[in-house]
């Protein structure tokens, strides 16, 4: 795969996002911007006010008679299977018999206008018989309520290792959930075609899954439903399984009324009805030697799955697979419990369990450091995976591409970590109220879907006789620049300028049976599928050219928009025309499946990841010990992207992911009341980072000269999720600041998110504990 860069827009160059001009002029069309077809109906959902109740009766007579109302449905109006579960069956689109979270859709109303549908929604009478609800992780753990059986991963003999170790600690820590807060809320628009066909425009990362959901609910074969999406206004995992609910309801109403139907959730409804990042409760028990080397760990992960499983099995598996982060755990028992609660089912969110898994092991490392009175990075250093030995993960995959040590060393020395740390000591010595902290966060993240079968992709490429190219693949564009990167791949293979390639919307009738655009694997998978499709066409064109020039196939070269055989040449366009003249096909599909993957979900053993990406960040923060407020002062990042397909886009992914992670760990707090209602359901109460909250000094670098050792697309590496976990440096730095209040003598009691209240309580707590310690162990 040699790459010439003498075309415009080759791989490894900083090409701008394909829709950038449309974005800045407001011309890029999102689904809500599409002109409405005449007769389009709008939908309002009637949702459950109770976390758990039996549905005794539903009376929709008054709603049906209301102005402008065209149709009203509940579960019994579903002709097919009321099931949109992505992994397990039995997850309904509309509640049937029982409701099991506040916000569960029960009735859908289609009317001529949104306002009419909303007015009618108030007329629906539902009688409930309220049942006891389980609202938090502890309750579910106590009652052993799970959405599917717990998952265990074990290596070595953890009990013996922990007991025999010279030091032993245990502890508990938790992290909150996170709303995706894509700026474009969920939307689906279904348009009936002839003979029962349906075209569904849907803001989704997973058109194939939405297609299945719609087909199940309608009870029709999959080939009657086409799902299409050109672009999303953000997704972050929130539009992987969740859109099926809305697409299925819109499609059903369109099918019943014969009219186009649009279902767009308003922000507050979106936040109440749809799933979020899983919150976790962790308990750990760890044995280690006097150097801080971990000998055995037992970690309990109580994950809030919510009312149904949804994608929880994958999330929990990934959390378990990342509880090692960069550290060798020779003896480990990792126990995952998918707690069933009467709250909305949590779902995919960038990182997919990885961030939570890393949070607990980083807490363990910090706990060891505080126990031994050593620096956290010293404890890290003795625990990092080696390259040749000490490199087997708890799921028994060998880490063979480890570069964490050089990354960490380089970052630490480039920013003079130790110098920054002593400057902080000075500052803290001179300031009573404000205290600074600093922390490093190393990240190793496994690339591939944990479930091997999902690691496949398809593409469809056409060359027209004027030399222009049409590109389609199964990946979706949510802002991450996937379409641009895949087009760069095609341009590089054909050696033609990027603007000859038309990028088209993702459609289930062009490339079928796709996987979600998720797990950071979008460009790895779809880039490779498009590479294969393009090479198929290219091979045919090479034959035509060889015949034309009476030259050998080997002598044909595609270069700078032309095709050469020695001194003779044709333009790419001329060759395209010639290929058609010769009656040779200029269209091809391409397919790719990631090699070498295996996974046994029962024993939790295998090689689930094709490779790992690595990165490290250092953040410096300041906290106000009287108010609990915190600011990030500075962040430095060094991230491995392999041979980046597009450094401009990858830098954007790193920055955006980091800030999203920072939000999860600091300001984004989901609050439910005792009645199971989400109180933080809009941006006035749920705080995502704003322009003032992000690091004012933000130095982000891509690791250079680090091609992927595996044969990925042009030796690039995936980048969508890994940098999110670098934001743990912010959380750890806040913990460091709290710990410095009492001279690093204690481990702070601070969960995530580290909101001002939480920080203030942690400061008070650590001061109290320190005052109760008569002769503190000196650092």
């Amino acid at each position: 795969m040699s790459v010439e860069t003498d075309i415009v827009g080759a791989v490894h160059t900083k090409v701008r996002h394909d829709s950038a001009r449309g974005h800045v002029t407001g011309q890029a069309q999102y689904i809500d911007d599409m002109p409405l077809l005449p007769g389009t109906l709008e939908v309002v959902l009637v949702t459950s006010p109770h976390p758990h109740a039996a549905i005794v009766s539903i009376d929709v007579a008054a709603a049906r008679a209301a102005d402008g109302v065209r149709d009203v449905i509940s579960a019994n109006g579903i002709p097919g299977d009321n099931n949109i579960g992505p992994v397990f069956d039995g997850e309904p689109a509309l509640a049937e018999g029982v409701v099991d979270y506040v916000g569960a859709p029960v009735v859908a109303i289609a009317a001529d206008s949104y306002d009419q549908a909303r007015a009618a929604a108030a007329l629906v009478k539902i009688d409930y018989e309220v049942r006891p609800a389980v609202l938090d992780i502890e309750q579910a753990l106590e009652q052993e309520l799970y959405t599917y059986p717990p998952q265990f991963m074990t290596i070595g003999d953890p009990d013996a290792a922990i007991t025999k170790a010279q030091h032993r600690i245990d502890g508990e820590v938790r992290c909150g959930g996170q709303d995706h807060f894509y700026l474009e809320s969920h939307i689906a628009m279904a348009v009936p075609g002839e003979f029962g066909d349906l075209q569904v425009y849907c803001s989704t990362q997973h058109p194939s899954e939405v297609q299945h959901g719609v087909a199940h609910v309608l009870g029709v074969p999959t080939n009657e439903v086409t799902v299409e999406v050109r672009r999303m206004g953000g997704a972050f995992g929130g539009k992987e399984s969740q859109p099926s609910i809305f697409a299925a309801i819109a499609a059903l109403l369109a099918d019943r009324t014969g009219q186009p139907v649009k279902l767009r959730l308003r922000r507050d409804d979106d936040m109440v009805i749809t799933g979020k990042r899983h919150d976790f409760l962790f308990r750990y028990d760890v044995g280690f030697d006097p150097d801080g080397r971990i000998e055995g760990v037992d970690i309990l992960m109580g994950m809030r799955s919510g009312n149904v499983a949804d994608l929880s099995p994958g999330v929990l598996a990934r959390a378990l697979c990342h509880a090692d982060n960069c550290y060798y755990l020779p003896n480990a028992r990792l126990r995952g419990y998918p707690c069933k609660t009467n709250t909305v089912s949590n779902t995919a969110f960038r990182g997919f369990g990885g961030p939570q898994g890393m949070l607990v092991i980083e807490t363990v490392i910090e706990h060891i450091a505080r126990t031994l009175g050593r620096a956290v990075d010293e404890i890290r250093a003795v625990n990092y995976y080696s390259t040749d030995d000490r490199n087997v993960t708890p799921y028994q995959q060998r880490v063979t591409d480890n570069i964490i040590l050089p990354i960490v060393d380089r970052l630490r020395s480039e920013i003079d970590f130790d110098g920054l740390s002593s400057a902080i000591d000075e500052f803290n010595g001179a300031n009573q109220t404000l205290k600074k902290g600093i922390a490093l966060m190393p990240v190793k993240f496994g690339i591939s879907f944990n479930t091997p079968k999902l690691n496949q992709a398809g593409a469809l490429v056409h060359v027209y006789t004027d030399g222009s190219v049409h590109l389609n693949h199964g990946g979706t564009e949510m802002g991450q620049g996937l379409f641009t990167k895949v087009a760069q791949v095609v341009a590089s293979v054909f050696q033609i300028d990027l603007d000859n390639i038309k990028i088209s919307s993702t459609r289930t009738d062009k490339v079928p049976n796709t996987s979600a655009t998720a797990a950071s694997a979008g460009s790895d998978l779809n880039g490779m599928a498009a590479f294969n499709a393009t090479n198929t066409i290219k091979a045919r064109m090479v034959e035509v050219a060889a015949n034309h020039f009476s030259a050998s196939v080997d002598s044909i070269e595609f270069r700078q928009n032309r095709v050469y055989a020695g001194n003779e040449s044709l333009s790419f366009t001329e060759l395209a025309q010639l290929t058609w003249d010769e009656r040779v096909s200029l269209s091809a599909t391409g397919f790719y499946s990631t090699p070498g993957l295996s996974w046994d979900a029962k024993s939790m053993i295998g090689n689930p990841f094709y490779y790992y990406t690595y990165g490290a960040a250092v953040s410096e923060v300041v906290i106000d010990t009287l108010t609990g407020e915190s600011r990030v002062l500075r962040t430095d990042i060094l991230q491995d992207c392999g041979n980046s397909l597009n450094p401009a886009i990858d830098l954007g992914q790193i920055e955006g992911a980091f800030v999203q992670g920072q939000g999860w760990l600091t300001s984004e707090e989901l609050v439910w009341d005792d009645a199971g209602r989400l109180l933080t359901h809009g941006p006035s109460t749920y705080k995502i980072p704003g322009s003032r909250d992000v690091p004012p000094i933000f130095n982000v670098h891509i690791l250079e000269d680090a091609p992927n050792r595996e044969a990925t697309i042009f030796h690039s590496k995936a980048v969508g999720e890994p940098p999110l976990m670098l934001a743990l440096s912010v959380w750890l730095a806040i913990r460091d600041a709290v710990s410095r209040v009492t001279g690093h003598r204690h481990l702070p009691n601070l969960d995530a998110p580290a909101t001002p209240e939480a920080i203030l309580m942690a400061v008070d707590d650590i001061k109290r504990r320190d005052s109760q310690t008569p002769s503190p162990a000196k650092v």
Partner: protein
Amino acid sequence: MAKLHVSTTINGEPTEFLCEPYETMLDVLRDGLGLTGSKEGCGSGDCGACSITLDNRLVCSCLMLAAEAEGHEINTIEGMAKGENLQPLQQKFLEMAALQCGICTPGMLVAAKSLLEHNPNPTETEVRYWLAGNLCRCTGYDKIVRAVMDTAEEMRGAAQ
């Protein structure tokens, strides 16, 4: 209730429309006038995706009643470029990759343009504060802030 008749100017064009008394400016722009560049991110005045200017004042069009446009001058993202020529902020956002999914971008640009009209020489802190009402979930803001700072500098240079 009868619809209201409103005469206003949108992006320099005299415009008339009919609206319900309770309709927001955002709804009329998007649904009535086909100007879908302004987006609804929250509908509650907290995200800035619907930013427009009303007589050169930056407002959230989701919080403004359409009827309030009577006799005033509205500017939206659609009026920012002059034909094929992008306004300098648009050009800079595009060059510096200060966007990803792009759905916050129109509101962000309208807000940034309004800042530079009020204050052609903002400090970085002023940029961050001015844009604090415009949420972006994708970029992390750094490139947006840099793009606004760079544009301001270039525009000052060009004005001299």
